[in-house]
């Protein structure tokens, strides 16, 4: 994971919300992950600017924050789009060709797996098993599940959200 190319648009309110959360919890034992979760709740993701706030407020090196952010799958370094797409690359879906589905989405949205479109409308991720192997290959757009996909169905589905 590396820096997101999408400009940070955090507000003063978000910053003060995060800072007051940190000052309330900084003396708790091992507060870092909890603070990072809260920051993600506030901003939707953990860009460099947000990690810097956490580092400065806790007086710990920024690398300590980044280390945790890149270790746990729960933390996003790029923003989530209005519509978040998750393509299942679990065994069943993969065998049924979900790799091709992912490729088709990447091509259509002109972003790579793990990225977000510049207008923040769509973000794309892969996941491991949504528990609907009978419908393989499967993907999710926000909470909506789409099954028995073929690459040429992709543009039609995405059009629903434009």
């Amino acid at each position, binding site marked *: *994971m*590396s*820096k997101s190319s999408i400009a940070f648009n955090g507000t003063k309110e978000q910053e003060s919300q995060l800072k007051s959360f940190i000052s309330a919890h900084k003396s708790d034992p091992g507060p870092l992950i909890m603070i990072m979760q809260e920051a993600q709740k506030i901003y939707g993701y953990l860009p*460099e600017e947000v*990690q810097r706030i956490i*580092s400065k407020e806790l007086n*710990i*090196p*920024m*690398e*300590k*924050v*980044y*280390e945790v952010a*890149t*270790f746990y799958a729960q933390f996003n370094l790029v923003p989530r789009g209005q519509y978040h797409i998750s393509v299942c690359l679990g065994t069943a879906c993969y065998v049924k060709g979900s790799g091709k589905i992912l490729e088709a989405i990447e091509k259509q949205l002109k972003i790579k797996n793990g990225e977000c479109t510049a207008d923040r409308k769509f973000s794309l991720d892969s996941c491991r098993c949504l528990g609907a192997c009978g419908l393989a290959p499967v993907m999710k757009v926000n909470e909506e599940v789409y099954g028995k996909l073929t690459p040429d169905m992709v543009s039609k589905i995405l059009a629903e959200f434009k």
Partner: protein
Amino acid sequence: MKKTAKKTVAKKTTKKVVAKAKTTKAKATKATTKKVDSKVQNKMLNIKINGIDYKAPVGSTILEACRLANIEIPTLCFLKDLNEIAACRICMVEVKNARSLVAACVYPINEGIEIFTNTKRVVESRKKTIELILSNHRMDCLSCVRSGNCELLALARANGVDDTKYQGAKTPTKIDDSAVHLIRDNSKCVLCRRCIAACSKLQSVGVIGTNNRGFKTIVGSQFDMPLGETSCVHCGQCINVCPVGALYEKSDADKVLDAIRDPEKFVVVQTAPAVRATIAEEFGAPIGTNGEGKMVAALRRIGFDKVFDTDFAADLTIMEEGTELIDRIKSKKAVLPMITSCSPGWIKFIENYYPDLLPHLSTCKSPQQMFGATLKTYYAHKNKIDPKKIVSVSIMPCTAKKFEIHREDQSAAGKGMPDLDYTMTTRELARMIKKLGIDWNSLPEEEFDSPMGTDTGAAVIFGASGGVMEAALRTAAEVLAGKKMKSLDYKEVRGMKGIKEASYTIKKGLTVKVAVASGTANARVLLDAIREGKADYQFIEIMCCPGGCINGGGQPQVSAHIRNTVDFRQKRAEVLYKQDKSMKLRKSHENPDIQKLYKEWFGKPGSEKAHHALHTSYVKRDWT
């Protein structure tokens, strides 16, 4: 010092006990075991290693217990008290009734435990682990800078591994050469995390860590920021603890050789006090060998026009810094405590992390820079050499010096004539000596050139933590008291303790309270105290590296095996204290060539001319 002495006694006693245990087995008396370690309530446990009975103190790990019994278990990531994370899985051993192999470095012993260190299962596991590490390691052992002392190579050899057993994808990596002092080549990194532990725990800098997860894990900085853009202090402690060739200094050695080969250039070298205490190690001598004479001879044979000693400038530093201290103590209004400014890693640290405390820092340049400044002004003038033709080179125990020589305000002779042109580490010099076919062992002992090779005992001890303090006290005490002092030994500030404090009554009504810290994690303690207004010292010495320059980031690498069992820093420091003790002149202000330098050039310490050439200013920075 006292504490160190006690420790040695304790160690000896432990050995005795184990020796006894071997012969009389269960008969080790309670009276003897009491002395072993009061922390663990004097209790010894009965254990069995490879079928033989031993005793080991409660609280020991399997690794420690085996070491007491002189049974060696190989390790890779383990560094005592620093990196005890059981990451590499090299030290796996078998324990009777345990479900799986256990990591000896962290597994605590219990009464009756039966340990097996060399079963087929253990040996095969160890071999496979090394083979898997090698499968993701770029092996250019023929040209690798660590070929001679690579810990991974040694493990591979000792365990007869097949280095091509597992072929496949390798973690994608890039070489980071953004920092001025080092190169990180993650294609050789074994992810032992020793560098990370050194950076965060010893130095409390923490600009490197493990990014990503699983196969994609690499050592790096946040958002893959190049190291040169972080608040790295350039101390090089990460290089010192790296078991392989993933971290090494950026070298100007070839440029130095080019300058030597250029007949137009007058190439002068200076060597730091701490280099003589360690360089012989690179040629197989035991830790604690003084290599001064052979080092001087080697430098002459390399072809330097003059071989001088940074010690000369260390004496000069004491004159300037001592005068500054005396002035500050006398002035009442001046900022106290004053802190030493010899260590460029430390300077970078305070600039990054405590910029508000910069007024506490002495304005003196480091001895290296004072030397260069004097060389290109006084020496050039006196010997009618155009300073533009002088190439000023230093051999330093330090990687931060590579940063320091490029700092602003470090060219006393004028623009385009930096005080220092190149600096090399102890390791680089050793490599150069080997490369040029100079046989260290048959070198004669030679002496430094005059006049900038003249030194005193006070200068020699600059290389150990507490040395600058002691040297300054030797001079300042005599000036403040107005008479010769009886004792020149300030033993309270010696030794390898992270923070040392002492008070000295110079004369009636004048007591000087001092503190010494080495390793920037320890420095933080003193700096926080200053910030809180709780530090009533007049003078503080801070060295960036733990133990001072004898353990600098440019010094010969000490393998983990030795690090974990020998106090190598103390042994190196003893070289310097021994040399100091044997010298006729032991106070900086008694150095005849320093006296001459002031008479002929600078006037008196702290003069305007001295200020221009020998003092500097600092920059406020931020940290990442």
